[in-house]
């Protein structure tokens, strides 16, 4: 399985559509690709995870440097499309206090 990230600009928002799995193998690539891109922009960001079937601690951890970049620019970062299993881990880690998550891209867009 390959990790794929498509970046879509939608007015003032950037949507990063991720496909694959975010475990200890793929999380470093995910973090690098996303942070390299996010450093270049000055937009609110939606990371759409509807194409991600599994996220381990390394995947959640990889979101922290991205949030750091966004916070330092005063821009928002939100997630969308978490499957039920991923959401269980998201809740267990208390991640809702860090990054908000929405059911889908549309809901995430209206929050920004």
């Amino acid at each position, binding site marked *: 399985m390959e990790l794929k990230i498509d970046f879509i600009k939608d007015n003032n928002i950037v949507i990063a559509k991720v496909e694959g799995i975010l475990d*200890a193998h793929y999380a470093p690539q995910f973090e690098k690709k996303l942070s390299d891109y996010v450093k270049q922009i000055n937009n609110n960001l939606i990371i759409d995870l509807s194409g991600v079937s599994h996220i381990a601690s390394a995947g*959640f951890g990889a979101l922290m440097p991205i*949030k750091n970049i966004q916070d330092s620019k005063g821009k928002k970062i939100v997630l969308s499309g978490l499957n039920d299993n991923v959401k269980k881990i998201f809740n*267990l880690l208390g991640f809702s*206090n860090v990054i908000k998550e929405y059911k889908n891209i549309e809901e995430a867009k209206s929050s920004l």
Partner: protein
Amino acid sequence: MIKIKLNIEPNIESLEKTRESVNNAIIQLVGDQPWLYELNLAIEEVIVNIIDHGSKAVTINVTLERKNNELVVEIIDTSIPFDITKKEVPDLQKHYREYKNRGLGVFLIKNIADNLKYRYENGKNILTIIKRIEAKC
């Protein structure tokens, strides 16, 4: 009592295959439990810890066995002695405020296991994760 033993390839490139083997073994022993995904993740986190801290020559085995109303998982490795039960669980909210991204795996392992035990025997780390089996409705 059936006991399933899995030989785990000690590299992160094989995690997908490991998850599949562990998933199949759990289903075979106790069926589709509500905590199936979480337990598989906790086992994956332990394996990643072993790979991160051990040498390339390390061997990792996972044995799974149903004992009455519990599923007993033993993760056995030949890496340097390491007792994860003694590892402090970080204050995650403080961690997040400081943008730290380490320690989440230990938090997950400790929170997902109903009981976690460690022993070092004959040059091997043996970590036991116990999960209570939910009664079928």
